[in-house]
Structures are given as structure tokens and as C-alpha cells.
């Protein structure tokens, strides 16, 4: 355990990112990279997002901001000013990766586009996350998660038949764009370190979302069928109520019996009225299961069975019986999930400015040689501005002038 190393400790990432790219920066920061989260003087918009720590709105209290910015250093810098640009270029010279989410062309207008940055640092990997990419007819359309989910084809799948679709929780288009940015930038970093060649990475959130359409595009391409969600459209595949909430039953899968039979056996063993009907071979035909009448029959049979059982029992017992019933977990269930608790997945860290502990999800990976750790909470507004400027060679007097001119913001007790 102690011999593990922080694999990205020698990597510096600049992030002009806010709510979209900060997840990409977090992935680097949690493996030890020096990630500098650069905020404009008005602050990262995520700082203003609900919910807040103890429900008290404050600059530091947004849980979203706190989650996505762990382990980073924070700097408040106005890159639209001449002095701000100069500081930014000095930082770029020291960086391996820049992650940004500005609208296409904006950084070029400031004189901080890829051509200018790569002149200062040819090894730089510059990754830009935008709703539609850097070119094309929609490149200037304004950004929102909902728009990217809609235009990426994902939202259409979130409903069956004629139902109005409902969007996925948690700004998933932003997440997808950010994860692809992280993936692309570490591949490009690997290349830059081997060849000395940096490059520009243009990540479109619309395209990112379009990679999550399952087989929908191929269904249209190969069979001319425009599909929506299949969940709930078929008996034995979808959400059903139980005593303490809902469960997700996966008994039906194509023409396979291996999930169906043990589930039906369980109903019969429990002396559920009418369960023998489900033994019929017709139930192994997806088209039969999709009939409205079949959906209703199945529901009527299983409901009394489910309504006197809890989701955790159904989940664990189903696995013992080699069938597949999963809990529809609420946030509380997720937090208390026995598997996650056993694995100590959730971590806590004390946050000085908030005067308490925040609970965070742990790593997405276990690695034998590399360390993932939470070493410091998200930076307080302007926390490392002064420290970073001093590393670049600015004197306290020069920093005071920059503060006065509104070019940078320095956290008060750090000034």
C-alpha cells in the first residue's frame, strides 16, 4: 500500500473549465497531477449550484463544486486583461495539458488560441470541450446539458412508445464530454511525451453523447427501425414496485431461459397464484412478452409476490437463486449499500472553510502500483493565486498591484 506512487505527480494541468471540464481535471488531480483550476473573477458557476453543504448557500458550499475540484489548486485570474494574458501564457509554458470549455474562437480572439499557446509550448495538449465542436453549422449554439442530450440522440431513448422523454440525472452530457476529454488528453499526453509533439483536441459533447445510443443508430441503419427504450415495454424487463420502493427485474432476455426459469420457479415455490402460467413456452418469445396483455398478466402475478418483500432481500435472494432482480436504489440506499460499505467506497475529508466533513465517492479503480487519493478539498476562492504567482516569479509587491487592478483575486488571509 505504502509503496504505491502517484502516477501523474509530474504532470501539470491547467483548467479553464468550470462546470463542464472540471471532471476531466479531477481525474488527473486524483492520480496526483498538479491541476490548477483557473476561475474568472466572477467565480466558477458551479460554486452557485445547489445543493449546498448543510444547505447554507456560500461560495465554498456547493457540493458539485466540492466534488469535481478535489486535490486541485485554485487561482482566480482575469484572462481578458493584458496582465492576465501574460500570466496565463507563463502558466501555459509550464503545463502539459490545458482543459477548457470556452465557446469556439473565444480564446483566439483573446490571443490565447491554440496557435498562440503552441508557439509558447509545442508539447502542450490543448483540449477544448464544446457543445457541438469547433466547426459546423451549430458551433455557435449556446451550451446546456439538456441541449446536448437532446441533440446527441440520447434523450429520445429515455421514454418508450409515445412518451415524452425525461432527462438523465446529473448533467450527463457534461460528464460524457468531460470523460472523453480526460481519455483523449491522457492518450495525447502519452504521445507528446514520446514524440515532443503536442496537439489540439476538439471534443464535441453532441458527439460524445451519440456514443451512448446503444444499438439505436445501427437499428435504423441496418433495419430501418427507429427505436426508443425497451425497458418496461416487455414483461419481465423493467421496474416493479415492492414493499419498500421499486426493484428492477431482468428475467426476460431475448429467447434465453436462463434468467426466466429460476425467477418463475421462485414464484411457484412461494405459491404465487397464477405463476404456473409463466412456465409456458410462449413467454420465451420477446414478441409475446411485448403484448400489452402479457405485460399486464406478468405484472398482476408478480405484484403480490413483490409487495411483501424488501428490495435488498429480493436482490440478495435472487442472486442466490441465479436470477436477476436489482434494487432501484435511492441516494440513501446507494450510500448504505452493503457492497460499497464493505469496500469503504465513500471517503470523508474535513473542509476547513466549511467547518465539517464532506463525503465523497471513492476511486473508480483499484490499482496495485498507483495511488488514487483525496489529499485536499476543493480550493477556496483564490486560495492558491498568490502561491502560483510566486512560483512564476512575481514578487509580493507585484501581486498586490495585480490584485488592485482586478487581474487576480487572492484569498484574503493568503494575501
Amino acid at each position: 500500500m505504502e509503496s504505491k506512487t502517484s502516477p501523474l505527480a509530474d504532470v501539470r494541468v491547467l483548467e479553464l473549465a468550470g462546470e463542464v471540464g472540471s471532471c476531466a481535471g479531477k481525474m488527473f488531480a486524483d492520480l496526483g497531477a498538479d491541476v490548477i483550476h483557473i476561475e474568472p473573477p466572477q467565480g466558477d458557476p458551479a460554486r452557485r449550484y445547489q445543493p449546498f453543504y448543510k444547505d447554507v448557500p456560500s461560495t465554498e458550499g456547493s457540493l458539485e463544486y466540492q466534488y469535481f475540484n478535489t486535490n486541485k489548486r485554485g487561482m482566480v485570474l482575469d484572462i481578458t486583461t493584458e496582465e492576465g494574458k501574460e500570466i496565463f501564457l507563463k502558466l501555459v509554458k509550464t503545463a502539459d495539458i490545458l482543459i477548457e470549455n470556452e465557446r469556439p474562437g473565444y480564446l483566439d480572439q483573446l490571443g490565447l488560441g491554440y496557435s498562440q499557446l503552441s508557439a509558447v509550448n509545442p508539447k502542450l495538449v490543448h483540449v477544448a470541450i464544446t457543445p457541438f465542436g469547433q466547426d459546423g453549422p451549430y458551433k455557435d449554439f449556446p451550451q446546456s446539458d439538456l441541449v446536448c442530450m437532446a441533440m446527441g440522440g440520447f434523450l429520445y431513448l429515455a421514454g418508450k412508445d409515445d412518451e415524452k422523454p425525461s432527462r438523465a440525472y446529473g448533467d450527463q452530457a457534461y460528464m460524457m464530454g468531460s470523460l472523453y476529454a480526460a481519455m483523449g488528453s491522457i492518450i495525447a499526453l502519452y504521445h507528446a511525451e514520446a514524440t515532443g509533439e503536442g496537439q489540439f483536441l476538439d471534443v464535441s459533447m453532441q458527439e460524445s453523447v451519440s456514443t451512448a445510443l446503444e444499438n439505436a443508430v445501427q437499428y435504423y441503419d441496418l433495419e430501418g427501425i427507429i427505436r426508443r427504450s425497451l425497458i418496461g415495454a416487455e414483461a419481465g424487463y423493467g421496474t416493479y414496485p415492492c414493499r419498500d420502493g421499486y426493484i428492477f427485474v431482468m428475467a426476460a432476455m431475448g429467447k434465453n431461459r436462463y434468467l426466466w426459469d429460476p425467477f418463475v420457479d421462485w414464484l411457484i415455490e412461494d405459491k404465487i397464484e397464477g405463476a404456473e402460467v409463466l412456465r409456458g413456452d410462449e413467454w420465451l418469445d420477446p414478441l409475446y412478452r411485448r403484448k400489452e396483455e402479457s405485460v399486464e398478466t406478468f405484472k398482476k402475478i408478480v405484484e403480490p409476490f413483490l409487495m411483501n418483500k424488501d428490495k435488498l432481500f429480493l436482490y440478495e435472494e435472487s442472486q442466490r437463486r441465479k436470477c436477476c432482480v436489482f434494487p432501484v436504489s435511492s441516494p440513501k440506499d446507494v450510500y448504505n449499500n452493503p457492497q460499497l460499505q464493505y469496500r469503504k467506497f465513500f471517503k470523508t475529508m474535513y473542509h476547513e472553510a466549511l467547518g465539517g466533513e464532506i463525503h465523497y465517492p471513492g476511486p473508480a479503480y483499484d490499482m496495485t502500483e498507483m495511488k488514487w487519493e483525496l489529499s485536499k478539498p476543493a480550493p477556496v476562492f483564490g486560495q492558491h493565486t498568490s502561491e502560483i504567482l510566486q512560483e512564476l516569479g512575481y514578487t509580493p509587491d507585484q501581486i498586490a498591484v495585480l490584485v488592485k487592478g482586478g487581474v487576480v483575486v487572492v484569498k484574503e488571509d493568503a494575501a
Partner: protein
Amino acid sequence: MSKKMPLDGIIVADFTWVGAGPIATRFLSEYGAKVIKIETKSKPEILRMTGPFKDGIPGVDRSGYFSNRNPNKQSISLNMKHPKARDVAARIIEKSDLVINNFRPGVMEKWKLGYEDVKKIKPDIIFVTMSMQGSSGPHSSYMGFGATLNALVGFNHLSGFPDQPPFGTGTNYSDHVAVPTHTIFALMAAFRHRNKTGKGQFIEIPQSEAAICMKPVAVMDYAVNGREQSRIGNRHLNAAPHGVYRTSGDKRWIGIAVYNDSEWESLKNVMGNPAWANDPKFATKEGRMANQDQLDSMIEKWTSGQDGHELMQKLAGSGVRAGMVLNAKDMLEDPQMQARGHWVYLDHPEIGVSAYNGCPVHMSKTPAQYKTAAPLLGQHTEEVMKEFLNMDDREYKQLEADQVFA
């Protein structure tokens, strides 16, 4: 411009199947890695037998579901139940940089190809396993699928309309992005680490945990505030109006999101400043958040009957965040997706030319490459044995006769 690709020279012994695994190794192949997909003819993977199929006719080499996840790869057939198969796999692993699988814990070990075994074959190997819920803990051996995992990690509870049962995303979402991208991120860090230290390692990506990292705020909210968030349809905790509204046509909607007062002014202007919208109760974000039912119904009255595409152009052109809900056909025909060259058309011996997703990351100097369509089952067995493993013809024929490649 250098022609060298980032992952040139990297060789992958790819035991993955179905969802998250093949999607991950697909990206490795796009950036230059040689990916050898180890399959079994006598037991083809589920996705090869799952639709859509070319012209609706089933066949192990006809699934578009499978093909989209497997371009550029080589497929060999190896019957792992055969006693001689393990040796062939070991010879591939000896020349590989990465061994990757998404089986349940214990399957690779049963074949004597767990990390401890593989390390003896290739000491600096990077070994990646994408288990459902991790290899330790009371639920580590549980079977599950993307769709069930989404329910387990909270997506379903939090996604859907408040007056209806939990819904989720309608897909096996966590398979598609969360798990593959986290996997690539970790293994790239591992390649880097190996280049510096000479050491390989074992990496496990529990799919449930990677999925939670995509949507943790509600769980954090519970942990610190004791609040149980629930689904809110198309609304947003920090923006209003924020919804999906019917337009003209069958199953046609537009998404509109208003984050601040100036965007609200723009939306009002596009709507022609109707009297209802000028009610002072909508003038502030707090007011709009508090009166969403009325807001949504009035906006839908306005959008219904209008052409979604024209409406989107008008709204987006005025700075309002708006986008049509596109279906799969729209996606293939979308002018933006086409201008970006997103869809890649590859020619396959049985399927013919069909559409594949391109990589959403456009690299200026080493763009993702698409050399070949998805492989036929076992298409490259002979090539990999003879050219990659330098197996002589006699041995190859013998193994073939012994049903090792069956």
C-alpha cells in the same frame, strides 16, 4: 505532421465481450494499438447474436450492435475449454502489453490466466479487469447487466417524472461511457508508469463504482444534508424554465433551458413578448423556479404546432439554449454531425457498408483511425497464429484438427 499514432506498438490481448470492455479496447485500436480479440466460435458472445442484423437476418457476423463496438480489431477463435488453448493464449500474452477482460471474478483464474499466472508469462504486463462490483465484498460475485447496474447505482431513482415510477436512461448507460473512459484513463496512466519504472500492474475497474463517479451529488447531499433527492423530470435544480416541449409532428420535442434573467428576456422576445410572460412573478429566477408548472404549460402551448427545427434555429440564434430531441435517423442526417464527419462508414464482408460512431475526440495531429470494419468471428485466427506467433503450418493444422480454434 507525424504519422506515428499514440499507441503504435501497443499490443492488447482482449478477452472482453458485450459492452464496456469492447468499447474500451475500441478506443485503443483507434489510436494505434493492435487489438487481438479472443473469441470462441462454439460459444459466440451475446452481442454477435443480438440485433440489429443486416436486413433483419440473424447471424454471428451480421449484428450492428456488435460491429459498432469492434472496428479495427482482429478476431481469433480459441476454445478456452480445450486443454491446448491456454498455451496459445499464453503465447499471445507473452507478446502483449495489456491483458483485459470483463468477466465475473474467477473466470480468468479458472483458465490459469489470472493476474498471478499472467505475471509469470509477462512480468511487466498490465492486467485490467472490469468487474461488475469489484472482486471483494459480499456482492462481488453477483451477476448483472448495464441496465440493472443503472438501477443499483441510483440513476433510475433519480431519472424520470416525479409522478411516475423510476425510469433511468432507457439504456445500459454505464456500459457506454463511464466504464470505458475510466478504464482507458487508468490504463494509460499504467502504461506511463510502466515506461518510467518497468513495472506492470493489476487494475480493477468495478463498474458500479465508475458509474457512481458520474452522478454523485445526490449521494453526497444525502450524506451531509440527510436529504433524499428524487426525480424531477426534465427540470433542473438551478435553472427554469428547463423542459422538453412538444412541437409539430409525431414524437417531436424541443429542449429549452433558461439559466438566467437575460436568457429569459431573449426567450420572451422570441415568443413575441406575450402578456403572460411579462407577469412579474416570472421576472426573477426564484419566481420562475417557483412557478414552473404554469411556465411549462404556457411554453408548450407556444411550441406545439411549430416546426422544431425552425424554432431551434430561432432560439439558438437569439442566445437561448435550445435543441431538438433527435432520433437515430435524425442523428445520421444531422447537418452538424455530418459536418463533423462523426459517422464512419466501413465495409464489412457480410454487412456491407454501415455506420459506426467515430471518436468524439478529434485530435489535430493523430486523428482516430478506422482501418477495418468489425472482424468476422475467427477471421484472423490463422494470421495471428502464423504471422504474430510465428507458428508453423504443421502446428497450426494440428491445433485446428484438435478443435482448439473451434
